[in-house]
C-alpha cells in the first residue's frame, strides 16, 4: 500500500532538493555540473511520476 503522507512529505523535500541543486549548476566544473544535471533530471522524474511536476523539462524554472 502506498503511504500517501510519506509521498507528500517526499515531494516537499524533493522540491527543496531541486532548489538546492539549482544553486550549484553553474559552478564551472563540468563533472559536477553534469552530475547535478542528472541528479536534477531524476528528481524531476520522481515528481513527474508522482503526478506532481507538469513542467516538461527539468531545465525550465521550478514550478513553486
Amino acid at each position, binding site marked *: *500500500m*502506498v503511504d500517501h503522507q510519506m*509521498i507528500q512529505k517526499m515531494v516537499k523535500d524533493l522540491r527543496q532538493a531541486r532548489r538546492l541543486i539549482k544553486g550549484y549548476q553553474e559552478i564551472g566544473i563540468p563533472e559536477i555540473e553534469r552530475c547535478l544535471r542528472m541528479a536534477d*533530471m531524476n528528481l524531476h*522524474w520522481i515528481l*513527474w*511520476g*508522482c*503526478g506532481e511536476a*507538469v*513542467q*516538461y*523539462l*527539468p531545465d525550465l524554472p521550478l514550478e513553486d
Partner: protein
Amino acid sequence: MDSGKFLSSKGYEARYWNEYSQTMSQEKLSELHLKRIKNFLRYAYDANKFYRGLFDRQKVNIDDIKTLEDFKYRIPLTDKPMIQESQNPYNLYGDNLSVDVSFIAGHFVTSGTTGKPLHEAWEDYTIWRVGQSWCPAFWSVGIRPEDTFYFAFDFGGFAGFWSAYFGALRFGAKVISGAGVGVTTEKRIHQILELKPTVLVATPTYTLHMANVAKKLGINSVKTSIKYYVGAGEPGTASVPMIRKRIEEAWGCKCAEVLGVSELPVASPTCNAGDGFHEHEMHQFAWVRDPDTGKEVGEGEVGERIVTNLSNYATLWINYRTHDLVRPNYSCPCGCTWLYYKGGVLGRTDHMLIYKGTNVYQTAIENIVSSLPDASDYFQLVLTRENDEDLMTIKLEAKEDISPEDYGKLAKNLETEVKTKIGVSISVEIVPVQSLPRYEVKTRRVIDQRPEEYKMELAKKYKSF
C-alpha cells in the same frame, strides 16, 4: 538500513514498479493529463515549426483548449506522412524539431515497415525516460535488477531496440548485446549458453526461430538460463495467446511484452493478469477513435489508438495516429488504473481487410495458425484484389517433420478453423519448408499485392477519418 542489493527489502516486495502512479484514480489521471497537455500545447506552438504551422492553418487557438474533449476533437490529428514530408537530407528531422540540434542526444530511425524510415531526434532526458517506460513491464513479470538481459538483435538505428537497452540499464540490470559483425542465430544461442542471461529480448517470431535453430543444434532451449522473455515489435505474447504459449513452452520462461510504436519514445507495459497492454499514462495520453465516425469508441469497442506523447521534447507527437486497432477498457483485474487494451493490438488500420462484410484482423489469423500443431511459425497473409473484391490467402510452411502428403489436410484444417472462428472463407496454400523469409527485426506478415491505385484510394479514405 534494511537494504537488498539494489533496492530495500520493501522495494523488492512491491507489486508494481510504481504503485503510486499505476493505481492513480482515473479522475486524477485526467486532471493531470489536461494540465500537462495545456502546457505541452503551448510548448509545441512556441517551439515547433510543424505544429505552429498546423495549428495556424487549421485556425486552432490553443488557448481555447479547456477540456480533454476539446483536445481530442479540436486539435488536428497527425500522421507519419505529415511528419515525414519535411524530412530530407538537408533538413534531417524536418519541421518537427523543437530544440537546437546541439541538444539532440540520440538519432534513431523507425524500422521502415510501412515505407520510408522516419528520422527521430531524442534529447538527453528522453533516452532515460523512454528507458524507464519499459520498467513496469519488466517488474510485472518478475524480472528484478539482479537479472541479466540478452538482446538478440543487431541494434542498428532502430529506436525500439535501443529503448529496450536503455530500459534494462535504467532498471539496474546487467546487459549483454547479441549484436556484432557475423553474429548468427547459432552464435547467439552459444552466447546464451556461455553467458547465462536470464532475460531474452527479441521479436516474438525471432524468439521462436531461435528455439527452432537450437533444436537443430541439439540444444534444448527450455534448459538454458532464460527465465523471462520480453518482446515487442510485432503482435506477440499479449496479443496472440498461442504465441505466448509457444514461447513459454520453447524456452520454459515467463513472457512480457510492450506495446510501442517505434517513432513514439515510450513502451506501454503488458498486463501480467490479462491478455493485453496498459497505456503508459505517465508518458502518454491516449484515446481510441472510431474510424467511421471520428468519435471516441465506447468501452470494449474496436478503434484506432491515438496518442499524445509527453516524453520527448525534441520531436513531438500530438494526437498522433498509431494505426493500431485496439479495444479500450477502463478497468483491469490486475489493479492498474491505466487504460487497458484487452486483447492487445488486434490489427492495423492500414492492413484492415473488410472481407465479405467481416473485419478480418491479423492477430485473429495468427491465433488460429499458431494453434495448429502441424503449422510452423512461418506464414504470410497475402492480400490481392480480383473482380472488385479483396482476397486473402494464407501462405504457410508446415513443420519440417510433416510429410508433404499431409499438406492438403493441414490446409483444409486451417480453412475450416478460419471459417468457424472468423466466419469467412480464406484460401490456404502450404508452401515448401524454408521458402518464406526469416526476420530478425519485424516479421512482415501482411503482403499487400493489391493495385497501387486501389491502395491509394484506401489511404485517402483512412486519412479522412
